[in-house]
Structure formats: C-alpha cells, structure tokens
C-alpha cells in the first residue's frame, strides 16, 4: 500500500533528520546537562526512526531495511517536513525548532495511538511517552529563554520569526493523508492544528514571545517536491560511509 508507505516515510524521515540535526550539538552545548539532554533527545529520535522506517520497509515489501531507507535514498525521496532539516543556528533556534516539532509530534502520536493499524498504534504508544517528555523539556526551555534576559528574549523571538513560516507544512493535507484518514490509520493533519495552536500559544505567551502575523507557510518537504538546500548537505554527511563502501556490513 503506497499511501501507507509514504505516510510511514513522513513519520520516520522527520525523526531521522531532526535526530541528525540534534546530534550535531554533541559536546558543544551551553552546559553539560544540555549535552546529556540533547544526546538523549537525538537518541530517542533515532530510536523512533528505526521503528517508523522499519515498518515502512516491511510495508513496502521490497526487502528494504530501515538502514537502506535512511542511507540509500536521495534527497527527493525524503518525506520530512522542511522545519526539521533547517540548520541548528544558535541553541535558541535549536530549542525553538525542537519545541515546534515536539508540539506537533506529541499531538500526532496521541491520535495515532487510536490507529486502525495496530503496528502504527504500537509505535505511537511507545514514542508518545518520549514525545511527552520532549515537549515538556523543550517548552520549559523556550519559556526560560523567552522570559530570561533581554538578549535571550531577542534571540528566541528571532528564532520564532525564522521558524514560524515552516510550521504550516506540518498541517498540510494531500491524497496520502486522505487515504490514511479513509483507512482509519492516521488523522487528517489539518485536524491537529487546534490542539497544536492551543499548546504552542500557551507556551509562547508564557515565554513572552509574539507569534508572527503572516500565515505564509513554506512547503515541499513532506511531498518531496522541493526540499531546502540544507538537506543535501545533511545527507552527504549522514550517508557517506554507506555510499563509499557499498554492500559493507557495519
């Protein structure tokens, strides 16, 4: 079932690409506790990737493993939203991106626990526990830095201004989503927006940050039609060993 395969790639590519980005921080964060927390977040993201892409390979039925899907597809076959492939920027931008994704992910996973496909529901149940913790942590950090010093506030507002145009794509719907809704596997992404706005609105208000007025949304990631220039560089790094030594077992 191609629509299910596409849906699973969207889930798995989001966590793969974001996990990669977060792991870039290793050893460079503002304080030791954050090094630990960021490595832990990345680890959870990669763990979720193994589940989503593992199931994607199974559903596709062509014998591709999660690793094959992660390391041997080119950029146009990636189905992650643009938000997660954006560069880390400063710590504030990284945490704002994390919060916006976590808020979507935790909402999505909550609904997926009711999926008609038990395999999807099982992954969602496991991942939602991690996601609940992630959104609490990233939300607390956004509040702490937004409502911190003048400088931290300005940096968090700048991060929000930069990232907000990438939020809308998470709630886009297309034929794949319609097929998933029809099969009772996944909710219509658009239906998550209310819950997301409530959660994000509450946290950003507490963080004394202003949501940009423009509703403009970049898109093209989850359809694979047009990724950002950043994704190719990320994949060049991530896939290098598998590409340089085809067929080797690691």
């Amino acid at each position: 079932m191609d629509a299910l395969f596409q849906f699973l790639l969207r889930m798995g590519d989001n966590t793969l690409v974001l996990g990669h980005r977060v792991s870039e921080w290793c050893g460079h964060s503002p304080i030791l506790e954050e090094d630990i927390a960021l490595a832990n977040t990345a680890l959870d993201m990669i763990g979720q990737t193994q589940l989503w892409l593992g199931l994607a390979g199974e559903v596709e039925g062509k014998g591709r493993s999660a690793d094959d899907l992660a390391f041997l597809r080119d950029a146009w076959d990636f189905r992650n939203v643009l938000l997660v492939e954006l560069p880390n920027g400063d710590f504030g931008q990284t945490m704002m991106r994390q919060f916006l994704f976590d808020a979507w992910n935790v909402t999505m996973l909550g609904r997926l626990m009711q999926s008609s496909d038990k395999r999807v529901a099982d992954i969602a149940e496991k991942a939602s526990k991690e996601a609940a913790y992630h959104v609490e942590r990233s939300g607390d950090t956004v509040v702490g830095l937004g409502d911190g010093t003048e400088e931290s506030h300005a940096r968090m507002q700048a991060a929000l201004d930069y990232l907000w145009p990438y939020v809308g794509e998470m709630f886009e719907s297309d034929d794949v989503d319609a097929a998933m809704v029809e099969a009772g596997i996944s909710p219509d992404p658009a239906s998550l927006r209310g819950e997301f706005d409530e959660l994000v609105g509450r946290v950003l208000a507490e963080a004394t940050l202003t949501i940009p007025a423009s509703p403009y949304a970049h898109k093209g990631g989850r359809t694979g039609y047009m990724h950002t220039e950043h994704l190719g560089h990320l994949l060049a790094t991530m896939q290098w060993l598998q590409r340089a030594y085809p067929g080797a077992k690691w």
Partner: protein
Amino acid sequence: MYAQMIKTARSGVKSRDEMTDQEREFQDRIDRGEKIEPKDWMPDDYRATLIRQIGQHAHSEVVGQLPEGNWITRAPTLERKAILLAKVQDEAGHGLYLYSAAETLGESRDELVRLLHEGRMKYSSIFNYPTLNWADIGAVGWLVDGAAIVNQVALQRTSYGPYSRAMVRICKEESFHARQGYHAIMQMAFGTPEQKKQAQDAVNRLWFPAIMMFGPNDSESTHSEQSMAWKIKVKSNDELRQQFVDQTVPQIEYLGLDLPDPGIKWNEERGHYDFSDPDWTEFFDVIKGNGPCNVDRMQDRVNAWEDGAWVRDGLLAHARKKAARQHAAE
C-alpha cells in the same frame, strides 16, 4: 583512566614521625581499608590531590565527547548511531557525576571548568588524538575505554568514598562501551578488505596513545608514593599498563590484525607480554599542549562555553523572576 600525571600536593611521603596525631589517625583509617567520607577530617594535601585527580577525570569525560561526536553524524547504520549517542551521553553523565564528587570536596564545577579553560587543568592525553575513520570509534571504545577500565577497576578500591562509588558505577558503563567498541571493530576486521584496512589503521594509530594513558614509567613517575600511601592511587602505572597489554594482545590476534608493535612477544619467564615503550617525547609533547588536537579541542570547549553564556544567563534570570513572582504571590 582519564587522569594521568596527577601531581600529589606534596613531595615525598610523610613518615609516621612527621605526622600529627590527627594525620596518624587518618593514615590508620586508610591502612585499615576504611573509606574517607566528605565530612571526615582529611589532610589539605589529600583533599587538593583528589580535587586534581577527580577534576581531570571529569574534564576527560567531557572533552572525550568531541572525538566521538566527530563520527555521530557519519555513523554507518541507525543502530551504530544510537549506540554511539548512548555512549557519548554516558560519558557526559560520568563528567557530571565526577564534578559532583569533586563538589563534595568543596570545589565547584564552575571553578574546575574555569581552570580547564585557562589551561591550568588538563584532561587525558588520549583525547588529543584525532578520530579519522569509522574503525577509530570501535577502537576508542575497545582500547581507550578498555584502558580506562583497567585503571578504574583498581580505583574502585580508592580511599575516598564518593570517588570509589563513582568508579563502581562508571566501570559498569565503560565495560559495556568496551564490548560494543570491540564488536564494532570486529565487524570491520571480518568485513571487506577496505574495512579491514580501516580497522588496522585505527589499531596502528591508537595503540601507543592508548598505552600512554597509564602515564610515564614508574621510574619516571615522581608523584606516586604519597598517592599510593593515601590509596588515591592503588596500582602503579607500569602494573596497570602490563595488565592492559596482556588482556588486549589476544584480542588483536583474534581480530586477525597485525600487532601494532613489533616488540610485542609473549615472555614465558615473566608470564606477561613484552612490548615496546611508547615514544615518551611524544607523550610529554601532547601533555604540554602540542598534540595533534589540543588547540582545537580546547577551542571547541571554550567556544561552547562562551557561545552558551547567554543561555545560562537567560535561564538563570528566568529562574530568579519566577522565584520572585512566587515570593510576591505568597
């Protein structure tokens, strides 16, 4: 073992005659194998030596994230990536745990970090070597964590309670890392010819730096005696190095790799492997700051600290505002 060349805060060993009553009583406790706890009386030099050793160990765990982090984004499979992330997370956790142990001696983490960044404290020489191919990540787990375990298992018997208990916990995780590292390099040694070449390259480059981790030869190690008497140090550098070589040579042979040192030979009479001395000039160069990565490693850490100042300031300001608001509401 991520602490080397720890200068004991006094020269020579105090004889019983030179000791005060309090010092004699302290030494008797150590000789009976009792643990010293944070609130117990201890000689100033004992405290200062421990702070140096534990601090250096903590710094090593933190700086040690960098050579491994160098490969996280290039790990070849999702599982290897997850294993490496978990390992690096453990190392950072060890750092945190050890800084806390140092705090029980009255030294703050901020102060230790400041001393490191000013170049007044060190971290293990091993982390000043680069990780150049994926097999290095296996070799670091196997050889570097392996060498650390040899030292740290001995340090589980160290006299200072919090440090000794930290070692028990840390050793469990390090053993896991060493096994995972060995498994990773085994996969390569038994893999394609190119992978085997990478494994050999890693072992060749990291062997001598790994055996240097134990510090200079006993004959050159001038600060050990008092530390041994205090059981801050439990075995000599050469004893530990020999133990590491003895356990590691058969592992290299099992992998089917060439031994990285032509001087390695089984000595029937001693019941140990003979091996060549590393180039101690290189060791002292690295310790002095002239290793291949010293400058970059420190720059990375200092930049991370300075770039993160606004984050620490912001979170602190928020915590104060929150506390003030709560206070006002009460």
